[in-house]
């Protein structure tokens, strides 16, 4: 039983990472109906910026803050330069453009910083507590706390501020929002900026666990895609819960299902997602779309 709870705690911690990246993906999807396959690599790039600032002697928290702002600007820049011009193209073309972002940012990190793995500073102290035999480290607790903060923050912004209302409106119906005087383009731009910043937070959580490398976020991206699908692509809450479910399922499945084991653990999120989708094709919290003829 102790093992079970230990695995759940570990699963929640890694689930928090998947959830934050999934949140970034869902925010972009909701606003612009685009799945940004480059999200993870953009986050890695921003994390490298943070690492570089630390190396130059900037205090850790300050460099994270500066890199967060950079990530926000990066999201806006990517939207202006890449997504705007292809936004009228067929969906397939947009997919290839975001895959292009994936390639570009991975190559950029590789070119600027090389393929060596770098130790990434952790935001959390290296301590832990024993609760009836279950070990809870500060970093696991911190990750879950960060996710809860992100959830609360996005919830508050979207529900209680004029900005959030305007962003929801432009995501819901761009043309009508334009008619009531909402600067839709600017809202979408902000959406991309926020998403990039949230992706950067995910990278900050991953960095200390896996070491910093240009391909660090690639496996995480698959888990985040599965989480977003599991939760429903139009629900930020769903993405976060989906991430936690995927994290726990992965951690439990890899230990308790002997034929899957550690090497086939990548199957677990897909299986869980598939089972959920077969029951609810739009995901746990997704809204059904009505097909009109």
């Amino acid at each position, binding site marked *: 039983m102790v093992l079970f709870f230990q695995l759940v705690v570990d699963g929640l911690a890694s689930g928090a990472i998947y959830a934050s990246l999934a949140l970034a993906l869902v925010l972009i999807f909701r606003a612009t109906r685009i799945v940004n396959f480059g999200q993870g690599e953009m986050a890695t790039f921003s994390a490298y910026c943070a690492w570089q600032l630390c190396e130059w002697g900037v205090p850790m928290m300050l460099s994270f803050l500066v890199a967060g702002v950079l990530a926000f600007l990066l999201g806006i820049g990517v939207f202006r330069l890449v997504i705007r011009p292809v936004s009228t193209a067929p*969906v*397939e073309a947009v997919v290839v453009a975001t895959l292009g972002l994936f390639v*570009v940012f991975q190559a*950029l990190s590789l070119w600027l910083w090389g393929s060596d793995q770098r130790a990434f500073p952790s935001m959390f102290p290296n301590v832990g507590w024993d609760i009836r035999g279950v070990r809870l480290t500060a970093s696991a607790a911190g990750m879950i706390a960060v996710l809860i903060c992100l959830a609360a923050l996005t919830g508050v912004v979207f529900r209680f501020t004029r900005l959030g209302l305007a962003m929801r409106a432009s995501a819901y119906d761009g043309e009508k929002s334009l008619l009531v005087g909402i600067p839709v383009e600017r809202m979408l731009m902000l959406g991309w900026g926020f998403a990039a910043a949230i992706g950067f937070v995910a990278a900050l959580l991953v960095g200390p666990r896996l070491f910093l490398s240009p391909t660090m976020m690639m496996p995480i991206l698959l888990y985040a895609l599965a989480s977003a699908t599991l939760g429903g692509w139009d629900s930020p809450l769903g993405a976060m819960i989906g991430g936690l479910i995927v994290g726990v399922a992965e951690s439990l499945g890899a230990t308790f299902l002997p034929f899957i084991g550690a090497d*086939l653990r990548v199957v677990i999120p897909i299986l869980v997602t598939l089972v959920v989708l077969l029951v609810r094709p739009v995901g746990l919290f997704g809204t059904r779309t009505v097909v009109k003829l």
Partner: protein
Amino acid sequence: MSTQLLRFAPAALVAALLGLPLFVPDFLLFEISIAVSYGIAILGLNLLLGFTGQICLAQGALFGVGAYTTAILNVSFGWDPVATLPFAAISAGLIGVIIGLPALRLQGLQLAIITFGVASAFPQLLLKMDTLTGGVTGLATDQPFAPKWFPGSQEAWLYGLSLICAAISIVVVTRLLRGDTGRMMRALRDNPVIAEALGVNLTKGRLAAFAVSSALAGLGGGLFCILNGFISPQSFLPMKSIDILIGGIVGGITSIAGAFIGALFVVFVPGFTTDINPALGGLIYGLCLIGMMMIARQGIAGLRMEKLPAAILGVFKFKSSSRFPGAVPGQLGGE
């Protein structure tokens, strides 16, 4: 004048393809053959995504199923590699039907993610079944040697083999797209609800499309295995499926010629960009992809020369109204 020329274009193209070994060095010929094997897999994806409106991101894994079928039949059972090709296609087709089962209920994005999950699990699965697949060391297969009467090199012989495979797949796909089956597939893509109301069997249509598309991927994979002479799980990483998708879209997803143009793109362009600058190769390739989608939205095959300047200028026209709201049903971004 131009229509006269167009009538001879297919004949000229065939002549050019057959004459290619006379002008091109062996190594380049080998790479072109590899591109043809990818082209067959991309053709399958075009049939599925472009004409039936179903997405499958496991095309690289199915390519691998074909390759491993050829390799295992050759290594463990001593079959002639060329004779294994039909079986590579059949086995991949069967697996494709299994992968296609969720497609009966899922569409667009959800289907893309699930099939991409299959692609990610595939290399791990190969490692797990190492008694059959040779694990990390992979499998080395025999190559069919050119017969004595054949004047050209070994590469030219294999090039001929890949052209034959490509021709067979092109004939199969064009036959399918003509007539009733083609109309049914396009109906599935354009509006499944209306199609079903008019008596099209959705289940049968979708599974059949998956089967044919996967069989083509398997044929391409078997060919790849023969050409390369060696396969390992490293050849079938999830990025391969993404490359196949990129090839399909860059070439033109609703075009048969586009499949092979796209294959040439994904085989040669990363190499070219690395030649320009080894460190920046990936960067240039990525920018190429993005730029390509800004200029040629329907893929290279959909590009019209006379519209090219307007398309390039259109990229810099920032004041146009954008599409954002509303998903297109049955496509990648839609539900």
